[in-house]
Each structure stands twice: as C-alpha cells, then as structure tokens.
C-alpha cells in the first residue's frame, strides 16, 4: 500500500470525524436551547402546577422583540436584551391577567385557556408584523466559523449559544439551590399554604417565577431565531419538543430537563443526518433517504416511548 493512499485513508477518517464532531455540536446547541425552553416550563409546572401551552408564544414574542429591536437600534446585544425583558414583561402581564386564575383549575382548563392565548398571540403578531418571516442577523464578527482542533470548523455564534445556555443552567441552579428566593420556590413546590402562612407573598412569587420562565423562552426564541427565521408559529414545534424533554427528564426536575434536552437534541440532529446514511448501506439511495429521514423524524418520539415503558415517571421524576 503506497504512502499517498494511506494518507487519503487517514485524512478521510479525520474528515468524517470532523463532520461527526460538528453534528454533535449542532445537537448540543439545539439541545441546550431546548433546555432553556423546557427549564421554564418545568419550573412553572413544578412550582405552580400549571401546564402552559402558551410558552411557545413567549418564545415567539422574544424573537419578534429581538427582530424589532435589532431593526431599530442595529445592535444584536440590545436585541437579546429586548427579547429577554420583552418576553418577561409580556409573561408578567399575561400571568396577572389570565394565568393566575388558572392555578386552581384542572389541567383541561389550563390547556384550553393557554391554547386560547396561543391563538390570540399568533394572530396578534401576524396582525402587527405580517405573515412573512423576519430576519434577525447575527453580527458579522461572530457569524463566521472558527477553527477548532482536529480540523473542526464551527460557527462562533453557535458556540456562543451553547455558552449562553450553560450560563442559564448554572444561573438557575444557583438561584434555586443557593438563594433565599430559591428556598421559597422549592417550598412553594411542596406546600403553598404553609409558605403563604409564613408571610411570603405567594402571588408575587408566582408572577416572578412565570416571568423568569417567559424571559428564558424569549431569549431562546431570539437566539434560535437568528439562525433560523422569525415567524408566527415558530414557538409551537419547540414547545412540543420541550414537552418531550420534560416527559423524558421527569416533570419539575431542572436536572431532568437538562439531561433530557441534550438527549433529544443529539438524537434529533444525529438521527436526521446519519439514519439515511445508515440505510444507504443496505438499500437503494432514494428509498434509503426517504425512509431514513421519515424514521429519523420519529426518533425522539420513539426515545420518549422507550423511556415511558421503562420509567413512566421520567429519568429524574419522583415516583408516584
């Protein structure tokens, strides 16, 4: 075997490894954004017992707020601030107007009322911004790729997204386990009456928790909106993925949401790329692509089903 031949082989291995690493990073990035979404959902459910379908609308609100702020100020950083605060403020407003009437209701009422909110938010946004997608541009400095070791090229912006997501995870962990507010949040999970009796303003606490969840959803919407596009209806597919994450991780568990989100992100991304390739090994090209991508689109739900069979309460859920 000649030297040249051996080189192409080795380089080929490196090339495919680089491709693989890139896809893993993509999976991580989408998983981390799912986490930011799911963390709010699971926190709101854990503390207030509310299932909030309109969480996807807050994701959308964040993205539109960012797009509007970017168009107005030209600053991407200000756009992100606008997304976070805009969604948090809208969340606060909605909580005080509608959501707080739902805490004592059954899940059906919560589902219906928040479904109604989706209709209002979606059509309202369409009314103000139109049906065409908006574009939110990442600043040139961070839009390009960066060279990582062993030949991996990866967009800086996506790495920043991963970093922001990890900061959010760390921040939430610190908030819940280390602060006085976290103590109240954890107490509120277990015994509403008791902490009210201890003089904590439960109503303000709930509004605050909802606003945190809303703000995080908005931030995720803006960060992802800059990669994809900003349009009406962008929130709901992510919302449903976040539900899958929560079912996998266990309701109310932030840790479960984190692990579940990474699992879902990786499965979805890697499955979509590699399943059709895998099928090509033993069937004809176009059929393999079609069947592979069809099956890949079901992969995370199959993952969810498997976890339901083995551990109905989710990976980190509490039994019963």
């Amino acid at each position, binding site marked *: 075997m000649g030297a040249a031949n051996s080189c192409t082989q080795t380089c080929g291995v490196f090339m495919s490894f680089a491709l693989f690493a890139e896809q893993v990073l993509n999976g991580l990035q989408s998983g981390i954004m799912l986490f930011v979404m799911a963390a709010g959902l699971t926190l709101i*459910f854990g503390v207030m017992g509310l*299932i909030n379908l309109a969480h996807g609308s807050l994701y959308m609100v964040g993205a539109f707020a960012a797009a509007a702020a970017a168009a107005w100020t030209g600053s991407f950083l200000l756009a992100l601030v606008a997304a976070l605060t805009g969604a948090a403020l809208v969340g606060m407003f909605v909580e005080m107007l*509608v959501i707080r*009437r739902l805490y004592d209701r059954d*899940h*059906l*009422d919560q*589902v*219906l*009322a928040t*479904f*109604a*909110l*989706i*209709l*209002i938010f*979606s*059509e*309202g946004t*369409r*009314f103000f911004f139109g049906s065409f997608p908006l574009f939110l541009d990442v600043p040139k400095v961070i839009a390009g790729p960066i060279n990582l070791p062993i030949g991996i090229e990866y967009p800086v912006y996506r790495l920043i997204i991963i970093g922001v997501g990890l900061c959010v995870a760390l921040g939430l962990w610190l908030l819940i386990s280390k602060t006085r507010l976290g103590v109240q949040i954890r107490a509120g999970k277990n015994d509403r009456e008791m902490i009210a009796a201890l003089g904590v303003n439960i109503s303000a606490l709930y509004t605050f928790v909802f606003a945190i969840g809303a703000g995080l959803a908005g931030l995720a919407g803006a960060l992802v909106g800059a990669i994809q596009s900003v349009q009406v209806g962008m929130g*709901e*597919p992510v919302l*449903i993925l976040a*539900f*899958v994450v*929560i*079912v996998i991780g266990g*309701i109310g568990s932030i840790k479960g949401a984190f692990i579940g989100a990474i699992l879902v992100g990786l499965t979805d991304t890697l499955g979509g790329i590699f399943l059709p390739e895998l099928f090509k090994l033993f069937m004809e090209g176009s059929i393999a692509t*079609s069947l592979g*991508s*069809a099956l*890949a*689109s*079901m992969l995370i*739900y199959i993952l*969810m*089903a498997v976890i*339901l*069979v083995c551990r*109905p*309460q989710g990976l980190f859920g509490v039994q019963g």
Partner: protein
Amino acid sequence: MILTRENILNFVITAGLILVPIYAVIVEEPFTITLATRAVIFSLAAVGLNIALGLGGMVSLGHAVFFGLGGYTMGILAFHAQSYIPLFEWPILIEGTKQMLVVWPLAMIISAIAAFVIGLLSLRTGGVYFIMITLAFGQMFFFFSISWSAYGGEDGLSIYVRNQFPLVNTLVPIQFYAICLAILMLALWINARLAKSSFGLALSAARQNTERVRNVGLDPTSIKLVAFVISGAITGLAGALFADLNRFVSPTMFSWQLSGEIMVFIIIGGIGRLYGPVLGAIIFVTLEHFLGGISEYWLVFLGLLLLLIVLFSRGGLVGLLVGRERVHE
C-alpha cells in the same frame, strides 16, 4: 324519552341539521351544504374525542392523529385505485379502492390500532404527562407524514373523484351530506347507549375516582384504554369523511392545532354533554365562515371567546342554554 330542556335543545339542533341543508338545496346555495358537511364531520370527530375526554376524563391533545390516519387511509387507498398501482403485491395482491364501505372500516381499524398503542403508552402515566405525551405523538405523525414522500409528503395527496357508496350519488353535495349526517346520528346514538351502559358507568367512575373503581375489582386503566380506542376509531372515521369532502389529504390533518380545535368544539359546546361537540362544531364552522369573511385575523376572536368560556362559563353553550347538568340515571 323525558322532555328535559337538554332533550329539546338536542331535538332543535337535529332538526336544524336536517332542515338547513334542505333549504340550501331549494334556494340553490351549494356552499351552505359544504359548510354543513364540514360542521357535521367536525362534530363526528369531536363526538369521538368526547368519549375519551367527557366520559373518561382523558385530556388527549393528539386526536388529530386519528383524524389524519382516517384521512390518509382513504387518501392512500384512493391514490392506488386511481393510479392502478396495487398497494401490495406480496404476499397477496391488495389494490386500492374507492368504496366507502371498504374505506370506513379500514380507517376505523387503523385508527383504533394507533389509539391502542398510544393509549397503552400514555396511560402508563396520568394527568399532565398524558396531555404532553398525546401532543408529542401527534407531532410524530405530523412530521412522519411530511417526510414520507411516497404519498405526497408536505404537499399532500389529491383525490380526483369522491369515493362511492352503493345506491347513492356521492358527487351530489346533499347526498354526501346525508351520508355524513346519518353516520353522526349513529355515532351519537352509540355514544348515548355507551354512556348509560355498565362500561359507561365504570368509565365515568374511573374519571372521578380511580381508587373507587379498583376497590370494586375493576381495572381503571384497561377501561380507559378501551374508551380511548373507541374514541380514536370514531375520530378516524371522521377523518376519512373529511378527506372525501375535500378530496385532499395533507399533513395538516395531523397538526396539533387541529387536535386543539377538536377539543375546542367540545368546550364551546359543553363537555360531557351528548350534543356539546355538535353545537360546538356548528358554532366553530359558522364563526370561521362569517368572522373569517370579515377579518383574516378571526382566530383572535375565537381565542377570546374560548378564554371567556373557560374562565367564566364552565359547561359551554349547552350549559348556558339548559343549565347545569343534573345528576340523573
């Protein structure tokens, strides 16, 4: 039958469903018949969901799965029939069909099987998990139908000619409407019998108190699962009819919005009431037509209406019109 206010209301709705389309034939407004057919088919889908939701208390946000499966069963069979490509050649030759009497049972069986699997998995948990899981499975079918390119993928499938029914010309709108209405009435009758039967009693008890059901020696999960399967089969049949009405199936039949809307029909009308889903679907289609004509943002109004009903008037319109449901035998 006792003459309660609810029975009178049900009678008025039935009469309306018979008389309005006849009137439309007389004054030659075929579009009204199409609207009425749409309302009747949505009613049927919601009657199906009401068995799971109203009687069994299962908040399924994935009933579009069955609606879509019914639709695609019809669409795929018709696609093979109109292109003369057999569905399978091995092990036995199976060809497409344009016969409603073949399509319907198949649509119901396929939906029932899907409902069995989804129900079996979702009922391992309860409460809010159930909602999320049914929603997620709905999304799974949605994405699958988009990426499965053999049957049109994202673009859906068009069917050239409406399916056939013996002795009826299904191409005449009022005749197709009559078929749909007859099926709806049959489904309502089945629903009413079911609610009063041993099974209905146990199902309703399982909704209210599973511990009670267990302690008389019955398994609430299998009771709920059977109800979920029946519910899915009826919604699947509605999907097959809907595909025939539009002569078109597409992934939107699987969409989560549709699942939400089927639930909205029930809530607007009145949950657990026999005619609740029917009234709700009629109102939805009417609003969609008239408000949709005035403003393209009509869903905002639907959202506000729904929000008001949930927050302030539980029991929906049937509840508003005839008062709270009395506990009866």
